[in-house]
């Protein structure tokens, strides 16, 4: 009689051992690399954990920090409200907090497929206006806070979100204009895109804040934040235009022809057939540009605006906290990382939608 014993796969190919074998030691070169990395981690990780967690202090003041060897996270905890909210009036800082919570709620809501219908952009618009009102004040009995006082993370988020929301449609229009057959429009768009892509964002911010007011007549000033916002929008739109143009080129000619042969006009053809497909195709590079733009908002320090990075710097200029720049910048990096991570996660989920 045949044995009915079940044959299990060899123990070295399944479970934890199997995973290690396949992913870390699959061939000679990989094994070498694994060993090197393990060695490197053994040398650095214990001392890092020692510094960051074990010897660290979290709630003390500056003097105590100078006497210990560990990380001084108190530079963050003691100055948190200034780092995050800058010069926003102390008692009113619940308003930026509320705004950020609302924004987070909107983002989480938008990440569910079921929410993706044509009401979503309108909901976002209403939400953004609401957030703007909460921050600005002057209504519902809220004391008004001028935009000059918005700093820290509020400024970073403001410049990013309004900047990207405006730059995206502007970029799409530029891309369509660049593919136009009318020579005037095409030349204009090409010139704009190539000029803007040829200069760094810093120089655009300089021009916006320093040179632009020189051309304005006496007495008229434009809000500094508005100028910075315009520079960021103009800059990002040029890059988005090129990415969208790539997407438009990737759509097969047959789609254009089928739309035309049905009798759709240019606007209908683009809005209903071509752009939905093209924009979906170029989601990965578009989100890369948006992530870069989010981080580029830190450049407004050049024109004297107090975004998250600048408020961190200001905290460090306080003699009590000088010398703890590592901890402070690690924290700022962490916040930027969270923002970028949310965006790339969102893009990955958008991009995996199949037409099924």
């Amino acid at each position, binding site marked *: 009689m045949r044995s009915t014993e079940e044959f299990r796969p060899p123990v070295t190919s399944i479970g934890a051992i199997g995973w290690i074998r396949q992913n870390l030691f699959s061939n000679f070169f990989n094994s070498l690399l694994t060993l090197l990395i393990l060695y490197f981690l053994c040398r650095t990780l214990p001392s890092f954990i020692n510094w960051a967690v074990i010897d660290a202090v979290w709630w003390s003041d500056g003097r105590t920090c100078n006497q210990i060897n560990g990380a001084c996270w108190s530079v963050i905890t003691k100055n948190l409200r200034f780092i995050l909210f800058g010069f926003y009036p102390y008692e009113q800082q619940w308003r930026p907090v509320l705004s950020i919570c609302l924004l987070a709620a909107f983002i989480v809501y938008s990440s569910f497929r079921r929410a993706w219908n044509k009401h979503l952009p309108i909901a976002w618009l209403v939400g953004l206006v609401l957030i703007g009102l909460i921050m600005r004040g002057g209504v519902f009995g809220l004391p008004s806070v001028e935009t000059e006082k918005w700093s820290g993370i509020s400024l970073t988020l403001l410049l990013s979100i309004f900047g990207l929301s405006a730059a995206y449609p502007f970029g799409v229009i530029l891309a369509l204009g660049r593919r136009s057959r009318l020579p005037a429009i095409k030349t204009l768009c090409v010139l704009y895109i190539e000029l803007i892509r040829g200069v760094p964002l810093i120089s655009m911010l300089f021009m916006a804040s320093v040179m632009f007011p020189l051309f304005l007549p006496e007495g008229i000033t434009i809000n500094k934040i508005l100028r910075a916002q315009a520079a960021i929008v103009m800059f990002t739109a040029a890059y988005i235009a090129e990415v969208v143009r790539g997407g438009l080129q990737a759509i*097969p000619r*047959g*789609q254009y*022809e*089928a*739309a*035309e*042969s*049905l*009798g*759709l*006009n240019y606007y*209908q053809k683009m809005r*209903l*057939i071509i752009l*939905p*497909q093209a924009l*979906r195709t170029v989601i990965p590079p578009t989100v890369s540009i948006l992530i870069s733009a989010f981080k580029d908002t830190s450049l407004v320090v050049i024109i004297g605006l107090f975004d998250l990075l600048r408020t961190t710097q200001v905290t460090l200029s306080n003699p009590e906290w000088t010398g703890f720049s590592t901890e402070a910048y690690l924290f700022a990096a962490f916040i930027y990382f969270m923002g970028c991570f949310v965006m790339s996660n969102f893009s990955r989920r958008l991009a995996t939608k199949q*037409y*099924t």
Partner: protein
Amino acid sequence: MHGSVPRFAELMEEFERQVKTGKMTNPTLSPKNITPEPIIRIIEMHKWFGEFHVLNDINLSVNRGERIVICGPSGSGKSTLIRCINRLEEHQRGKIIVDNIELTNDIKNIERIRAEVGMVFQHFNLFPHLTILENLTLGPIRVRKLPRSEAEDLAVYFLEKVHIAEQASKYPGQLSGGQQQRVAIARSLCMKPKVMLFDEPTSALDPEMVKEVLEVIMQLAEEGMTMLVVSHEMGFAKSVAHRVLFMDYGQILEENTPVEFFSNPRHDRSKLFLSQILH
């Protein structure tokens, strides 16, 4: 082509019989079904792609209810000819008049003509991001300005006509080639066009699906739709066409009824062409 060989055999026999007895057994081929007013008139039309003279002095008149099959070797300009009719290609000289509207650079005219001329492509060109139903209702809602419910009823009617009603909520990517082409035909029909253009509708299909699509086109033919078909399906041409046009090097070399064309080709080039496909 290979899958049409069995059909050839049957049709060749039928064809021989018809020639011998001088009788046509397909009632829709009777000239009574053609109204004498021309719906398409092409007068001395020329087209160049840069230096290349792709269409050379085309003169063609198509009456309502008439069915024309255009055949010829590749590169002869057959597809370009029918694409000029709905302005997917622009002609440089001569006149094209569709439904009494002249085809010029005026975008309004072009859009009016395109609403009356339906086109079915070799590679289907369905919109992949819309469901089948949405593919069909897009034209009627946006161009004919029909309300959504009416457009959907229309779409369901034509989906049933091409025997594909159960796929209405699927996406094109989930359908086979033959099914996609039938949806493409239904999509054009939803615009209630006066003329249908077919640009090698079965060339991208495998033999089994060729049959199902040809059956749909024949059904349309029986209902009196005016159509211009560019095709290599000679059996189809014989049983459905009122006229066969043979093109080569951008010219219409021969224009005749199918019976005459296949039995007595006059031009040397057509004789060569027929000998190679009717072995």
